[in-house]
């Protein structure tokens, strides 16, 4: 019999953006090898990490994701020659931006998982799930959404001055 799983108060929602050639296949391998990992992750398949627009990550957080994973082929193994290099560069810059707007970078993870690394996929997903579980729900965007209920009036002197200068 399986051991009874510990009950948690909070089940985080994890979204994984993966490339079809390496990480998706790695996740398939984890399945065919009957490895076990938390059921919190939802996988979105892309042809290449190069296709992943940073906007999708923001969108995922906005839709209530508590953690986001982006994973593709190891550098040099890209099925499309160099897509993962473009992704790496793009996300290096994007992380800075996220940090600037106040998102805890621990919620966002980038990794390389090859088609042969079913075990690594399990490790990455489990680690991120547990890490995010410990951090609690992502609230930053919800708070922002509340602030968006702004009246639209220019009611502070700074804003007025800025408006008049335009």
């Amino acid at each position: 019999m399986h051991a009874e799983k510990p009950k948690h108060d909070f089940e985080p929602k994890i979204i994984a953006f993966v490339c079809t050639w390496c990480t998706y296949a790695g996740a398939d391998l984890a399945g065919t090898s009957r490895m076990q990992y938390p059921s919190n992750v939802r996988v979105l398949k892309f042809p290449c990490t190069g296709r992943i627009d940073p906007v999708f990550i923001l969108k995922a957080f906005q839709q209530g994701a508590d953690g986001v994973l982006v994973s593709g082929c190891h550098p040099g193994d890209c099925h499309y020659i160099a897509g993962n290099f473009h992704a790496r560069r793009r996300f290096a810059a994007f992380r800075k931006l996220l940090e600037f707007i106040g998102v805890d970078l621990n919620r966002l993870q980038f990794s390389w998982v090859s088609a042969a690394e079913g075990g690594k996929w399990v490790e990455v997903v489990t680690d991120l799930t547990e890490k995010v579980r410990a951090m609690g729900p992502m609230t930053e965007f919800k708070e922002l959404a509340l602030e968006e209920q702004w009246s639209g009036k220019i009611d502070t002197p700074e804003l007025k001055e800025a408006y008049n200068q335009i």
Partner: protein
Amino acid sequence: MSRIGVFICHCGENISRTVDVERVAAQIGKLPGVAFSTDYKYMCSDPGQNLLKKAIQEQKLSHVVVAACSPRMHEKTFRKAVEAAGLNPFLCEMANIREHCSWVHENKEEATVKAIEIVGMMVERVKKNRVLPSITVPITKRSLVIGGGIAGIQAALDIADCGHEVILVEREPSIGGHMAQLSETFPTLDCSQCIMTPKMVDVANHPKIKLYTYSEIELVEGYIGNFQVTIKKRARSVDEDKCTGCGVCMTKCPQKKIPNKFDMNIGMRTAIYVPFPQAVPNTPVIDRDNCTKFKTGKCGVCQKVCGPGAVDFEQEDQLIVEAVGAIVVATGFDLYSIAEKPKGSPIKGYGEFGHGKIPDVIDGMTFERLASASGPTGGKILRPSDGKEPKQIVFIQCIGSRAREKGISYCSKVCCMYTAKHTMLYHHKVHDGQAYVFFMDARTPGKSYDEFWRRSIEEEEAVYIRGMVSRLYQKGDKIVVMGSDIAVGVQVEIEADMVVLATAIQPQKGADSLAQKLGISYDKYHFYSEAHAKLRPVECATAGIYLAGACQGPKDIPETVSQASAAAAKVMTLFSKDQLEREPIVARVREAGCVGCFACKKVCAYGAVEEKEIRDRQGNLIKVVAYVNPGVCGGCGTCQATCPSKSVELDGYTDEQIVAMIEAL
């Protein structure tokens, strides 16, 4: 309103054991847009597929989601079934509830909830799927082979034997390449000329092969199936149609002391010459840099003695445009020369081992010419300095190769074998001589290779010393070679008459500029890169361009020939159809939004993005936008993620589809 059909597979018990499939089907059936939702034991089986087809027709379904195994497994199966039922195959998506759900979770409740979410996500996605017509590209069934060495010759003959026209372009005046320079070949010691020249003649006589020698690639335009290649045919100064190849011009030419590159500059040639007697075509070339007529305007002896009147001093370079559908690159190798440091070379270590300073320190290819029966010495091993027979000869391996600190970290692969061969050839020709070899490791993988190497030691008495040479200097007419024998742990000093350096194999000079013309990638040494090191070793990432021989990496002759035939087979696979059909997962530009910044062009690894001019009815230029050539696009979507104005979309993975999936969560 879409009428989506959802089919949940039990996969025997593989899915239904941990996922309550009936509950999933019932839940999904409630989603807006879902017209039909059911579960079945084996969706991929014949009855399962029939169920799918029947439902599409009876329920008039507009989209299909099959929740089963990984799309990597059965996406093709279900898309085919959907197509058979009259729907566009790209209106079918798979939800992976086996590998990503039932197999990795034990808790039935958790797995069922996750399965419902996964299927729900795919339902939202499929709503945004569009009909994608398959893309066809016409194919010009002619091919271009660049390089007339053994790789190019083999590829050209194989393609031509299949009945397709081949254009073979060679930079030198004759085809044959480096293999024509070799004396004998390992591991069988058959004479290179004897096996090479019949193939060269076959090329010359083949009705399907058009040969351009003394020619270079000037420009390559187009894409797979439709390349336009501009070839620069340099002025030979001899009319190929009139010349009979009698050779009188060469015997009468007064310029007789020009070092012959083919003989590694040991032998001499005239200003009007063929590089070697078996040259194909057997039409001489005038070396304009060394010809008295071209230098001073006087002479013209060759023209006077030429019976058919073939010598033409007025001839000019020609540009020829050819249309081809596939390109085989077989430009071969060059030897690392440590004698002279080329301008701007990042490689250190020039002038070592007295190369270029001590005349009797030669490289492996020079030794081949000395040992060749048709070489400058008629096959006698003689010292270049005084023509004496060397009685003690030292071979030093890995000159340049495997020397990270010098700038070349790779193994040149053939030197261990050819040095073993050299010791044998030397022993056959100089019976009382002694050969020594300084080596790091003997690398002899290959059929009958290790046996051959052992023979050089056990039967042909070569002495192998494991260790490198530290110093080498001229002493009288001897060359003192100082090295270490690390197996015994002693210093060795040999007074040699001649030293042969096994210099590294490098790509041809100008390999990088050719790669830029072709739009193919190359590594830091300028060896061309294959699409996949293991599974696509003869194709370039650029569709329609294939690689053969040492231009891709150091190779011996058997490997080169196999790769050339493999490249030819790839070309024939391409030519086996009249139209090239490809998966329509390609990027498409929305011209209205495109501002022409060409960020997409910079990130495209395939060179698929072109510039397109938009003009009004009067022909005035409105703007320049990006255009993705569907024949070339690889379908990675990097352009879409890069585009600042979101004006390029990858069919099958549009923003709409992906956002719909995220929103479904």
